[in-house]
């Protein structure tokens, strides 16, 4: 049965959707219970699979029993395993968190929320394990479609935000599909492993280069990299709380993973090197994303919107790391580290920010005065996660930036070191406003006598929030202790990175 686990992980949430949809018409609580069971099962499975991969190397699973280029295969290497654990963990934490918030935000459609939520997770988990480019597209559609619907179910302006997300996201998916089509015409296969074998003689071909550019642009839209980010701030701001949390963490990180997979498994680092300007463009787009995202974040007063722009900056970090990885001995280390760190930090931040909206209806930073009295735990978590992101050692953000700076220095790109320093300063500016409002400014009015804890979020929302923000600090220690170095080495080995440049 153990060898069936990769499939079980993906199919469990799908079964959860179906069962939840059938029972939800009559039993209102059932979909939530089913969701927790399905996601719990997926998480356990993911941990087992990940430990198996760490021990014995990449796993293969041939769907329908056909040998790979003919059928579809699941291929799980170190990066996939890490992603699986990360997605299923975040999905589970968000599901626990979502229970109260969904009851408040869409009381008459709770079961539909859970069904679409599980479909979204199915899509993300599927992307994280698949070894086939077209299968990746289909799952991208499942995840995106569920995402559009969930975003549009948010507050009064969410329908417009969701529609924008739908239109721009579909353009992104089309670009990706066009790219895959071009690759198919050039090689006649869709299997990632097979493509990596067939493509090298064709690296100079116009068809292949066009395919690369289109896939890159399509996925850049999905991860909201700077010139393609127009849909993202609105979608994150107006989506329901739980949806903001999940699409800013698990979904964004999965699409980033897809980008890494295409760039280094389908095209390999040799393609990037043989088309040298490509790496420069990727790096500088990342750098521009970092600076512009941070500058826009400073200009925002809406807390969720500020976090959304901060996500654009952090996607810039990831893309910068991806661009640099061929030139350093660290390889993908900064990227993988930041992928995990940012997912945890942003998750904690959105959870805290949405809890403030849930309890106090406070959406603006300028209204947060006195929050430390009314919601002490939430305020503390928000600040903790902010400090972690700014880069207070030993937080996750510190480790990410440390490795990214090392990578920049090693590849001799001092400009990027400056970019990272400047962005850290900008980050300090926009998070300091939050910290100042919460802890330093006196509350506008004297709170009523019993308010000290009364405004706190419900326990079900608080626990995931606390877990994520504590983890966002603890993960920094884990990275520094070297406990996960084996994983990183595995990732670099699979992509042929991290050697002497």
């Amino acid at each position, binding site marked *: 049965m153990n060898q069936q686990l990769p499939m079980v992980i993906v199919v469990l949430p799908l079964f959860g959707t179906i069962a939840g949809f059938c029972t939800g018409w009559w039993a209102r609580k059932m979909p939530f219970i089913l969701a927790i069971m399905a996601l719990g099962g997926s998480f356990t499975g993911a941990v087992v699979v990940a430990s198996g991969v760490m021990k014995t190397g990449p796993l293969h699973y041939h769907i329908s029993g056909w040998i790979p280029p003919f059928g579809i295969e699941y291929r799980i290497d170190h990066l996939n395993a890490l992603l699986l654990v990360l997605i299923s963990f975040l999905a589970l934490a968000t599901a626990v968190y979502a229970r109260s918030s969904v009851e408040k935000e869409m009381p008459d459609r709770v079961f539909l929320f859970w069904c679409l939520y599980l479909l979204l997770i199915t899509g993300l988990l599927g992307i994280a394990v698949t070894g086939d480019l077209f299968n990746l597209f289909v799952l991208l559609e499942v995840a995106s479609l569920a995402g559009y*619907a969930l975003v549009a179910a948010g507050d009064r302006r969410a329908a417009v935000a969701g529609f924008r997300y739908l239109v721009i996201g579909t353009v992104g998916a089309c670009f990706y599909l066009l790219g895959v089509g071009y690759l198919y015409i050039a090689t006649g296969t869709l299997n990632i492993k097979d493509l990596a074998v067939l493509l090298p003689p064709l690296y100079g071909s116009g068809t292949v280069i066009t395919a690369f550019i289109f896939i890159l642009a399509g996925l850049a839209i999905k991860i909201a990299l700077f010139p393609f980010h127009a849909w993202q701030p609105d979608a994150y701001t107006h989506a329901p709380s739980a949806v903001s949390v999940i699409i800013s963490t698990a979904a964004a990180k999965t699409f980033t993973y897809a980008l890494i997979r295409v760039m280094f498994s389908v095209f390999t680092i040799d393609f990037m090197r043989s088309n040298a300007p490509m790496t420069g463009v990727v790096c500088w787009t990342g750098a521009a994303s970092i600076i512009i995202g941070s500058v826009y974040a400073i200009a925002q007063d809406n807390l969720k919107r500020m976090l959304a722009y901060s996500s654009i900056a952090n996607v810039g970090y990831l893309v910068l790391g991806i661009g640099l990885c061929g030139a350093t001995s660290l390889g993908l280390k900064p990227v993988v580290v930041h992928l995990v760190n940012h997912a945890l930090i942003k998750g904690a931040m959105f959870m805290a920010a949405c809890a403030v909206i849930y309890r106090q209806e406070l959406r603006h930073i300028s209204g947060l005065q006195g929050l430390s009295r009314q919601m002490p735990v939430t305020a503390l978590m928000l600040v903790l996660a902010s400090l972690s992101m700014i880069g207070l050692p030993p937080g996750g953000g510190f480790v990410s930036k440390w490795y990214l700076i090392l990578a920049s220095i090693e590849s001799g790109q001092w400009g990027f070191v400056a970019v990272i320093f400047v962005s850290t300063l900008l980050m300090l500016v926009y998070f300091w406003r939050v910290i100042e409002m919460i802890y330093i400014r006196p509350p506008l009015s004297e709170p009523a006598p019993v308010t000290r804890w009364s405004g706190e979020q419900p326990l079900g929302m608080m626990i995931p929030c606390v877990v994520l923000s504590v983890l966002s600090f603890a993960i920094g220690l884990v990275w520094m202790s070297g406990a996960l170095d084996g994983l990183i080495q595995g990732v670099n080995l699979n992509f042929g990175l991290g050697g002497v440049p």
Partner: protein
Amino acid sequence: MRLIGFIIVCICGGLLLYGTSEFPDWGDPASPASTHLSNDYIEKAFDQTQVPNLVTAVLADYRGFDTMFETAVVFCAGLACLLLLRDYSRKKERFYRHVPTGVILQVKHPEKKLPVGTEFEYMDKDWVPSDLIIKNVCRILIPFIQIYALYVVAHGDFSPGGGFQGGVIFGSSLILLAISYNLRTLVQRVKEKALGILCALGVLVYVGIGALCMPLGGNFLDYSALTRIIPWDPHHIRAYGMLGVEIGVGIAVMAVMVVIYINIASEGRHDEGL
């Protein structure tokens, strides 16, 4: 802004044309797409699956997993439609026509209903008196359309067709009913919950057949594992497995189409509309 858009479109179009410049010739038998995998599919598919229609064999067996998620996408569209359009608020007013006098009554109280029959009749928002000829022609046509839909589903293995097409035809027969009579006729005959269950059931048939193969010792969707419970030749069983999933697809597509139509036509209120 328009200028920027135009420039971007030009760049994209130019890139696409540049990409096509190195395409193999149209229909070139030596092109990679026709040599790498296609030959194996063409030579082996019939022996391996006993399905004469190669397209079906590739879609429902070799790449059946993609098709499963395509069905999930359709299901997702139905769910999204329900989530976003379905209006559960009970604040609705009804219109009735008093048949003998032709007076139109507006009932604002959501719970109050007038007895509909000889004296009163529903007055839908976009109500148009339906034509006798249209009604009768459609009434005769609908059963034939439905039989044809079942034929298309069942014959997916042998000729062009399959679950998606058959489901769409069946769904459109129900929509024809709603157009030629009125939406209320359809909503009364096919209950919302039944439609919802059918959507999920269609996907469940597909995923269920796939998952059933796992405890029987095969991988997911490996139909040949089904020989453990149905003693049949392992190649023929693949054809029947495909038929099974096609039926699932057909059910899901049919139900989702009707759900989407009802929700859009009635603005999510499921009682009146086109």
